[in-house]
């Protein structure tokens, strides 16, 4: 069985899991849905038709068909003879598989499974196991009702039968229907039973095991393969958890045998799509074993281990465990190894794991010690989008730590990153701006980004239809605009950029809105630009957003409003559009960022007297009296300033009253 083919593709809209699913982007074979199968069979149909026409059918084909005819017409003895001759042929070639299929051999083989004769069952299973990798045959055999029979055979006392049945189920499981049937006919608990093996067998060399123990090992390997195949369906994964597979997997992971480890880890990483399994990896102490297997030379095993790590590293405690077990060293080593470059699934998995693991300060420090940043930057020239996305993600995490920003620049990472802004692959476009966002805070990097026209390219990402891309691009704009030389001029030189930005305030996604507000707050510091965006109606749009209850949005909105006040009639307009009272309400939030932002906004608004009246009427004073004592200097100053303005107005009013 081609192990590599069991990697599946996932997308957030795959419909298989809830939000928060780690996004894996990899090179894959097409998923085995019935939608994709017809296209693959039509091409093989064409090949087959050509073959028949050219009458190049080898004599083996006819010989096989003759054997099947004997099986149909024969008693048990004749069937056995024919079966044993059939097994002599290489049943993994398509011609031979077709031979069996086209003479009605599949029905015969499935019928054999129903006999009570052990030898017939064994012979039938051996043939089925070899021909079921063929996609047409898989479908046919499933339709003939093989799955319930195979599931029944899993309980057969003869161990050979169990092994062959499980291996056949593993082949059939590449179709969705088979996976569903297996679950419905109670196959999952039976397969899980096959995994139950003594630890001794797992950790002793094969030469030192007796016959029985060797067979147990084979049984658990077959069970793992079958379950791996089954775990492509989310419902099956849920069933596996329910039927108590987790402790058994934890035990099997301790094995030293490569052929058992590969399906076991393959199974684990597919199950790790579920948060319950991600947690289990942590609680059942599977991390150490995973790292042990990660060190193995076998590339497939490395790939699956990396995938498992990628999926479970979203939890901080697991990340720590991975780091302490030496996972980062191994991952960096694999990323560095030039012989791995051609193996795209491996590279994508390893870089993905690095990305997710880098999400903690201690890990970033460790990665620095390992010299990870230059290694990652070197990978930016890869052709594979999946690899690039993950590398960019990892660099974004590393760049949060200031010294790394220069490292990226020195390793010549900036030009490549900017080049990738032209790519169309959305996940990549989500991550690259985040790297540039961090780098833009570093002076020399910013110069380079500017020279290469990076800011314009980031800005044009605001036109992308993915919300996440828009959000991250907008987030990247703030530091760029803040730190670029001649930033005001630069921004004005981007045709249509400001209008685009203001238009994004019509979006319905809160993350987009937050990020855009942050950007606007930075843009508005330049007076000329503020004039331009005011012309585009930024005041009206910001005012519309004021009624939000999302604290994250409120935090950025407040700051945006604050800096948009300083032009022409904007202050007044905010007041007229009824932005003040809702703003005062923000002070009831518990988020200190919101307080700060609101205080800033109110301070800037309070330079217009009518706004002061409105604020006062809305009861702002009581809040400000509290925040005036805050430890946050900006909050303190803004609150004080605002109160000051209100008081000045009150005093002025008093004076006028007195004069009268």
């Amino acid at each position: 069985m081609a192990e590599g083919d069991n990697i599946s593709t996932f997308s957030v809209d795959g419909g298989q899991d809830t939000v928060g699913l780690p996004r894996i982007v990899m090179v894959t074979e097409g998923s085995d849905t019935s939608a994709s199968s017809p296209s693959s069979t039509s091409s093989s149909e064409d090949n087959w038709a050509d073959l028949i026409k050219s009458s190049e059918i080898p004599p083996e084909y006819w010989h096989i068909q003759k054997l099947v005819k004997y099986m149909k017409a024969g008693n048990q003895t004749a069937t056995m003879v024919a079966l044993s001759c059939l097994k002599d042929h290489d049943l993994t070639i398509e011609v031979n598989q077709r031979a069996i299929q086209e003479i009605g051999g599949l029905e015969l083989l499935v019928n054999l499974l129903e006999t009570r004769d052990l030898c017939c069952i064994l012979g039938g299973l051996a043939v089925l196991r070899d021909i079921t990798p063929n996609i047409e045959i898989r479908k046919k055999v499933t339709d003939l009702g093989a799955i319930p029979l195979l599931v029944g055979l899993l309980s057969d006392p003869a161990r050979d039968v169990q092994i062959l049945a499980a291996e056949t189920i593993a082949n059939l499981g590449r179709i969705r229907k088979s996976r569903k049937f297996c679950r419905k006919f109670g196959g999952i608990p039976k397969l899980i039973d096959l995994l139950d093996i003594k630890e001794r067998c797992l950790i002793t060399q094969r030469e030192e095991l007796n016959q029985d123990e060797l067979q147990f090992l084979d049984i658990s390997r077959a069970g793992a393969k079958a379950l791996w195949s089954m775990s492509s369906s989310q419902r099956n994964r849920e069933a596996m958890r329910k039927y108590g597979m987790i402790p058994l997997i934890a035990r099997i992971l301790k094995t030293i045998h490569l052929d058992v480890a590969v399906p076991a880890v393959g199974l684990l990483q597919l199950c790790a799509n579920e948060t319950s399994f991600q947690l289990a990896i942590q609680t059942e102490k599977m991390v150490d074993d995973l790292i042990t297997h990660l060190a193995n030379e076998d590339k497939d095993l490395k790939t699956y281990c990396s995938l498992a790590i990628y999926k479970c590293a979203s939890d901080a405690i697991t990340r720590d465990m991975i780091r302490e077990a030496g996972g980062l060293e191994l991952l960096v080593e694999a990323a560095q190894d030039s012989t791995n470059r051609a193996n795209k699934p491996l590279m994508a998995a390893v870089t993905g794991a690095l990305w997710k693991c880098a999400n903690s300060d201690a890990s970033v420090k460790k990665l620095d010690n390992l010299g990870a940043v230059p290694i990652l930057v070197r990978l930016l020239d890869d052709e594979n989008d999946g690899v690039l996305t993950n590398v960019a993600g990892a660099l974004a995490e590393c760049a949060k730590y200031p010294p790394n920003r220069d490292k990226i620049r020195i390793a010549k990472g900036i030009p490549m990153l900017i080049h990738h802004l032209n790519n169309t692959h959305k996940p990549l476009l989500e991550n690259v701006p985040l790297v540039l966002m961090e780098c833009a805070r570093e002076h020399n990097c910013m110069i380079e980004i500017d020279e290469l026209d990076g800011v314009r390219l980031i800005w044009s990402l605001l036109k992308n239809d993915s919300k996440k891309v828009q959000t991250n691009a907008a987030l990247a704009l703030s530091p760029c605009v803040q730190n670029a030389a001649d930033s005001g001029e630069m921004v004005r030189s981007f045709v249509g950029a400001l209008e685009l930005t203001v238009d994004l305030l019509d979006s319905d996604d809160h993350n987009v809105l937050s990020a855009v507000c942050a950007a606007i707050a930075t843009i508005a510091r330049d007076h000329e630009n503020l004039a331009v965006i005011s012309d585009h109606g930024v005041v009206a749009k910001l005012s519309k957003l004021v009624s939000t209850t999302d604290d994250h949005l409120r935090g950025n909105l407040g700051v945006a409003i604050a800096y948009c006040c300083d032009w022409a009639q904007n202050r007044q307009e905010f007041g007229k559009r009824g932005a003040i009272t809702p703003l005062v309400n923000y002070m009831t939030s518990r988020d200190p960022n919101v307080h700060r932002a609101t205080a800033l906004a109110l301070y800037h608004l309070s330079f217009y007297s009518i706004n002061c009246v409105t604020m006062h009427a809305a009861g702002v004073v009581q809040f400000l009296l509290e925040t005036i004592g805050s430890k946050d200097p900006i909050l303190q100053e803004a609150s004080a300033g605002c109160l000051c303005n209100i008081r000045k107005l009150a005093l002025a009013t008093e004076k006028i009253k007195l004069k009268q």
Partner: protein
Amino acid sequence: MPYRQLKEKTLEMLYRNTHFSKNELDALFTMYRRLVTSAQNAAPTSVIAQPAAKIDGIDQNTFRDVMHNTFDLVTEDVVLDRVWLTWERGVNGGEGALKFEAWARGLSVLLRGTDEEKKSHCFAVYDMNNDGYITRDEMFTLLKNSLLKQPGDEDPDEGVRDLVELVLRKMDIDKDGKLSIEDYKQAVEQEPLLLEAFGQCLPSKRHAAAFIKTLVNK
């Protein structure tokens, strides 16, 4: 009538020479006695008013019944006869009724035989003229009825002959046109399905296991 109870000496010897435990041997003896007694009672008298011929062991009829009913060994008559004939009868050999020792030793091979014992048993069954080789003709005789006669067949034996060729080609390791015991053993070693390639002559593992279970429970 011979021993109503199994002699200690015999029990010892059988315990050493078969795969049965002492309890199982006792149970087998009980069963043996029962079979012989009921066969005796059912025997027809040959001459009026004279007692029937003495049956002092398991005769061929009883044997056939046990094979069919207890072990579900449904097979060609040719094969069953061969099993009867080749059954180890001990020093005196012959083709008469089976005494208990012979019966027990034979069952040991059938029900719990090692791979070697089973191979030897099957080969002996199939080698119809006991010359140490299974020849084409012997194979043909054994497989004659293994294919359903199709209505359109001109030569119904053609399929059987072809099957014989296939088996021979597969199992004839030294390529001398016939199967020696060495050929047979080697071929079965590589492909266990071929053990009973010329006809079923062993009870299925399931039936063997079920039978032994009933022995112990008695």
